[in-house]
């Protein structure tokens, strides 16, 4: 305990912003967060549901109400004490309570799509569309996956033409950076309410 230093080496944050990385299981969220940020361990709780009860040790069943799940979490330290935090959020419905908290005040979301399991991203896309939250679609190009064009993917996902679709390699830092920059560009383009008075 005493070997802890208050600082973890990075400068203390003066302002911190969130970006959500959403998408179905296996879409490459962990890979992307690891490619572009200093990845850190982070656990959150999940209420035990009937779906997951079967996988837990039955002897523990009576005293367990929640179980912990690892969350993808990474930090990008920018200059002047600015930090961007990436949170990888599972796409399954049972995690939506978590999204609500994460999405509040976020810069936006990256919805990762695996073209072999395109339907796995539908729930995430619906969620951000309904909230009018800035989001971009990032299509992870796996080595052996069939290449689709942006138009084909847009049609399959049925997203409006103003939502950016980026084909990228989640393992590659530069490629993952482009996705984040595109998200910021998209957030900058968001229509804003005109202030009542200036």
């Amino acid at each position, binding site marked *: 305990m005493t070997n802890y230093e208050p600082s973890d080496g990075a400068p203390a944050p003066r302002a911190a912003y969130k970006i959500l990385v959403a998408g179905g299981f296996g879409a490459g969220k962990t890979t992307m967060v690891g490619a572009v940020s200093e990845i850190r361990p982070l*656990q959150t709780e999940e209420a035990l549901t009937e779906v997951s009860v079967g996988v837990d040790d039955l002897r523990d069943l009576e005293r367990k109400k929640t179980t912990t799940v690892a969350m993808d979490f990474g930090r990008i330290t920018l200059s002047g004490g600015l930090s961007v935090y990436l949170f990888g959020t599972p796409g399954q419905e049972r995690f939506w309570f978590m999204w609500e908290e994460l999405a509040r005040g976020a810069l936006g979301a990256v919805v990762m799509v695996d073209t072999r399991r395109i339907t796995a991203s539908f729930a995430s896309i619906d969620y951000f569309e309904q909230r009018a939250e800035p989001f971009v679609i990032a299509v992870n190009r796996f080595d052996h996956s069939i290449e689709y064009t942006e138009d084909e993917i847009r049609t399959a996902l049925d997203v409006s033409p103003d939502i950016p679709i980026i084909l990228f390699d989640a393992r590659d830092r530069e490629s993952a950076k482009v996705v984040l920059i595109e998200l910021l560009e998209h957030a900058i383009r968001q229509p804003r309410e005109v202030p009542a008075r200036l």
Partner: protein
Amino acid sequence: MDDDAGPLVRPYAITRGRTRARGRALDLVTILVTSGDPPPPRLRLSPEHQRLLWLCQIPHTVADLASRLELPLGVMQVLLEELIEHHLLRIDLPAPTELPDLATLRRIRDELRTI
């Protein structure tokens, strides 16, 4: 809610059974710092509370604290709220609640280009 008599999952022993923060939970990117005030004489601080106060001599986000103490987020939020209630921690900077202004977004974009 969820306060029936059954034993709780182990991490909640740390929070003395409180399973969720009161009101809206602290945002993951809220920045906290120690107030510098001494703890009230009768207050018993757990080792986790003490470690949080130690770490927060330097401003930290809720997410970074949860990661460094390797405690689940929900537990962390409860512990931090207790420290805030006792004025031992204060909010250095609240998390944004809406999309930042254009100048901030442009600055983040430009900074991301340089990493």
